[in-house]
């Protein structure tokens, strides 16, 4: 089995007062040493898919799957202790907003060192050297100075690069990036993405890139899975996005205002109830 991840028929459900809400409705996908994009609107289940993989769905939420395996090891039956070891060491996740995912009362350096020492037996001096090296790899100038800063003293773009450094320092095989740049300015967005992209390629990691921005995903991924209402409606190679056929994918592509091709009106998406009911497309390799 050479796939990093194999997921078959994954569902995520939440009980509500008015019955069960199914956020993810039986999707199947696998991840090789590649960059897979998951795209969809808010509420399409894309983030829940990422969280389910890491076992981050809290009760009363419920995750079921025929198969949820990391390199052959089931993540559904893994003990909480084993899951803690897997998170960070094998699968890391970068969340949307560095403001909420960095510890506000710990210096940046201490947080990165903690991330490393949780998973590897290294002494303090070595850990510090590795942290500095990692900050340098995410293009942070004066890493010595930045190590001593608290999260509120760094900008959003810097915070997100620090998150990337922290997530990559234990050398995981899989990185899940959930809207890693939506909280950032356009001008820093690309820089952060390029850094992430370079590190993922250099280290031969698998990347799941979750985003609402189809065009952005297409530029940074090999394959794209488009999600709608908890199911995958279309899977295509990123380079062939313009050959996409599903009306939802086309609708998403056309609703973006284009600087170079002005139109008097933007195309609004008309949702077909049949999209909800159509069976999920498999994104298995």
């Amino acid at each position, binding site marked *: 089995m050479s796939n990093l991840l194999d997921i078959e028929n994954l569902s995520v459900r939440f009980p509500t007062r008015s019955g069960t809400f199914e956020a993810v409705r039986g999707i199947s996908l696998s991840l090789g040493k590649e960059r897979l994009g998951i795209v969809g609107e808010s509420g399409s289940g894309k983030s829940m898919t990422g969280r389910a993989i890491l076992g981050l769905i809290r009760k009363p939420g419920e995750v079921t799957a025929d198969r949820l395996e990391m390199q052959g090891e089931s993540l559904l039956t893994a003990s909480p202790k084993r899951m803690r070891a897997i998170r960070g060491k094998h699968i890391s996740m970068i969340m949307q907003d560095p403001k909420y995912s960095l510890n506000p009362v710990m210096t940046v350096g201490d947080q990165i060192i903690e991330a490393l020492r949780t998973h590897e037996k290294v002494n303090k001096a070595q850990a510090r050297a590795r942290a500095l090296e990692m900050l340098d790899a995410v293009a942070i100038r004066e890493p010595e100075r930045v190590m001593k800063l608290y999260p509120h003293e760094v900008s959003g773009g810097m915070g997100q690069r620090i998150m990337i450094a922290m997530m990559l320092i234990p050398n995981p095989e899989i990185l899940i990036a959930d809207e890693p740049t939506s909280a950032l300015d356009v*001008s820093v967005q*690309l820089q952060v993405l390029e850094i992430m992209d370079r590190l993922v390629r250099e280290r031969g990691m698998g990347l799941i890139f979750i985003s609402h921005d189809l*065009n952005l995903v297409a530029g940074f991924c090999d394959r794209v899975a488009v999600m709608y209402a908890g199911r995958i409606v279309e899977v295509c190679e990123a380079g062939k996005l313009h050959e996409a056929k599903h009306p939802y994918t086309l609708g998403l592509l056309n*609703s973006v*205002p*284009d*600087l170079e091709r002005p139109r008097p*009106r*933007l195309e609004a998406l008309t949702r077909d109830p049949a999209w909800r009911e159509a069976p999920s497309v498999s994104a298995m390799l």
Partner: protein
Amino acid sequence: MSQTEIQIEGLEVFFGDGHERTRVVHGIDLSVAQGESYGLVGESGSGKSTVLRALVGLVPDWHGAMRVGGESLQRLGRSKEFYRRVQMVFQDPYASLHPRQTVDRVLSETLALHGIRDGVDARIDRLLEQVGLGGGFRFRYPHQLSGGQRQRVAIARALALDPKVMLFDEPTSALDVSVQAEILNLLSDLRSEFGLTYLMVSHDLGVIGHMCDRVAVMQTGEIVETLEVDAMRKLQAEHPYTRHLLDSALRSSGHAGMAEVQRTAG
């Protein structure tokens, strides 16, 4: 030549007190003609939202001269006539609507504040119609609405007093692209229907390019360049920062970067 609706001269805005007082807007000039749609772009911290906030009287410490529709603006506090003329729509519809007030209450309070008591009922129905929400939404609470629907309510609230000028602070950046398209279409329709003047802040050049006639690019509290949208589309920007913004916008939307565009162009 059409009349000037918004005139800003030498606007300086300060934050903080005493020795911590810092200048965040460094003397900008801006004029928006009646019926025009004007865009302000720049990264976070460039002062673009602060300009809007100073206009509507949410920032106490500013110097310079600002006029809207011929009326000179005081440091703080605006006349009732001003708020009838100028309305603002904020970025996050989750934060700008009172969570415990129904849509009906939000809209009727705005009208009541301005002494409108006649035909409130019909007026609210018409407002909801205008922003593409049916009467069925009238007695809902914000948590029963989607992000796009909430932004429509915020727009209806701004429209309630028949303003001439609407200020938008990142009106669609909290929304999905598909919903963004609907809201932008709505804003275009309203502008042509009521002959409104728009001043819109966004970091998204695609949105600004779609909605506006002219654009001012801001960086660290200064306007570094103003240009016509046509020029922006043809990538005829002079200032390196504008070029950098354009380049990022093009590349993140899957186009060739500016260097490549220009290489192929000639």
